[in-house]
């Protein structure tokens, strides 16, 4: 009986960890618009009580995440970054996303996630970004001639033809469409035998064999 319950505990632990990984993957599963430039351009500081306003047009339906590249920031014990997404007139709040950060460096982006906006295509959104904490968070500015880049103001000063280093990311309406788009992205610049259905088969067999092996090792 004791042996039986130990096996169940291991199976349960493996299942929970798998679900956590899947849950995180599903949370990240959106596709950034790679037309938006994301480079280390000119740095600007964002202090408490200041804000950055960026207006942009969504190129697809399903806006659900904004990736922002921050610069190395001396933010002491950390603080909170808050992104609010309004309608075009910056008056109606649509979405809100907060990130508690203990450090910011220029090595990677921070993701502001929010509930999917289903009918976002072609609409202009007004995004405001604030930082609440000690010292300041640094952001990068880019020269951005994309028609989707509509307006940028940094601490009240309008900067035309520029945007912050960011990428809007979109999620499809169905899981299957998301799987298909991810399959397409991974398939690009790959040989025929690692593309499309072959790639899906590889993932299937990888998960089938590894999960079966783990289950058998626990229960046998």
């Amino acid at each position, binding site marked *: 009986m004791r*042996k039986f319950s*130990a096996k169940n505990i*291991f199976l349960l*632990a*493996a299942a929970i*960890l*798998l679900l*956590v*990984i*899947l849950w*995180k*993957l599903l949370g*990240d*599963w*959106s*596709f*950034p618009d*790679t*037309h938006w430039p*994301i*480079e280390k351009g000119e740095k600007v500081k964002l202090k408490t009580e200041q804000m950055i306003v960026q207006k942009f047009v969504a190129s697809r339906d399903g806006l659900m995440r904004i*990736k922002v*590249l921050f610069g190395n920031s001396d933010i002491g014990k950390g603080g909170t970054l808050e992104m609010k997404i309004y309608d075009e007139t910056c008056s109606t709040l649509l979405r809100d996303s907060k990130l508690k950060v203990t*450090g910011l*460096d220029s*090595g*990677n*982006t921070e993701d502001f996630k929010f509930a999917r906006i289903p009918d976002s295509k072609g609409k202009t959104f007004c995004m405001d970004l604030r930082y609440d904490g000690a010292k300041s968070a640094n952001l990068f500015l880019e020269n951005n001639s994309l028609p989707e880049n509509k307006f940028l103001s940094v601490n009240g000063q309008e900067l035309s033809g520029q945007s912050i280093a960011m990428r809007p*990311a979109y999620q499809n309406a169905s899981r299957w469409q998301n799987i298909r788009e*991810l*399959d*397409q*992205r*991974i*398939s*690009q*610049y*790959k*040989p*025929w*035998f*690692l*593309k*499309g259905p072959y*790639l899906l088969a*590889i*993932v299937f*067999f*990888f998960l089938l*064999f*590894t999960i*079966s*092996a*783990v289950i*058998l*090792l*626990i229960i*046998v």
Partner: protein
Amino acid sequence: MRNIQSAKDFCEKPGFILALILAGFFFKGVFITTLFPIFTGQDEARHYNSVQFLAEPKEKNWPMTPRPIVPDKATIADYNFSEEIREAGAAADFDLFRHALYDTSAFSDSTGYSGKNETTIDSLSWKKYNELSPPDTAGKSLYHQLASLIEKSLDGSNILVRFFSVRIFSVLLGTLAVLLAYLIMRTIGFLPRESLILTAIVAFQPKLSMYTTNINYDALLIPIFSLFTWGAVSSLKKGLDWKNVSLMIISITLGMLTKGTAIVLLAVFLGLVGFHLYQKIKHRNKFLLVLALPLLLLVFGFLVPRVTAYLGYNLVALLPFKGSLTDIFSSLQSYLGKSLTMGRFALSSRTYWGSLGWEDNWLSQNFTDIIKLIEAFSLVGLGLYFFSKKQRPEYLPEKKYVLFLIAMIVALQLGIRLYDWKIFIETGSLALGTPGRYFLPNLAGHIILVFTGLGMLLRRENYFRNSLLTGLIMMFSFSLYLIFNVVLPRYYF
């Protein structure tokens, strides 16, 4: 009913579970191969250029253009690679994501499963031979020569087909390393089930999977180390015989044809032969012992340098001992002062387990600390294993095997650090370094040692099994975490 029972019996057979582990490792490797865009492995474009260089026609009847190799290269075009590598790399956006963790390929929504420049890559319009002199290569190792056979056999295909086929060849080599890990576990006395769990832990170690998807000679060096270890532990089990001596000599030869690191195997082999000789004659005649010593010295002093020179190594030139004793000590002090730092140890550790620097979260920051804690407990267990009067539990391997695995780890550490020191003397900086991947050839031994220490502390077989299963679930989930929550989002989300 009988059919169900026989299917259940079949599924429980060690051979079936081992096949699942190997197949799982292989498909995991092929998937990771696909996740990493072209040339994103360690020095991968350079290694692939070596493969192309070796696949070139013997008669090089094309003009060479001199272009010095510059230290700081901004784009792939700055490297002395073949035109095909430079152009295909640029076309596949390699310069975008090469150094920038935050950037990805510029995906095309309109072209579906093909990148926007894939038609150009498919057109085979670029020269796939080196015309820039000197070509930027990583040598002519056995790995590169084997890979060049794949390159030649796929001559009419585009670079994506050839490049990713060579990557899959590396995955096959990694799969071989996992199989050899199982054979090592069985040989040193673990029961089949424990051996399978330990093998699965090795197979799920994320860095092993990631590194053996690269085009890199280490993909061959890792199974060669495992082959040598298998031969060596077999000799400890049954004494020297033609089979295990052949395994060791073959692995040393193949290893030295692959990478200089394999010189370490030669040193261990000589030590092992000395140990066996000592065991044979220690109870017989002291006179024989006195005769054996000069014989060993003769082998060390005469035969070994000649054999290594034949394989392309000058042992004396590889050693960092140059100048007076004072110079050597001063250089050693300076080297140790710079290399034995907490920061460098942490970096080695992070790069041994996987892509831990890619995400800034709790798990990435603390994973190696968790491992260190487990290893600290294990060290206490190993201390007990060697020095306490308590009897060794039967489910753990005998001391001779554990001592041998420790010797392998010490030898590889010393070998890598000696070479790092030599490069430090030549360049004045830690240009080589000690990244974690250099220590992967001893991964199976490392895992065995960790769980032997824990097994000694736990004292009961079922507790030991539970610790193995805990390790298995940790490594399995960590491996999937790095694949699905770190690598995949980094390149595609």
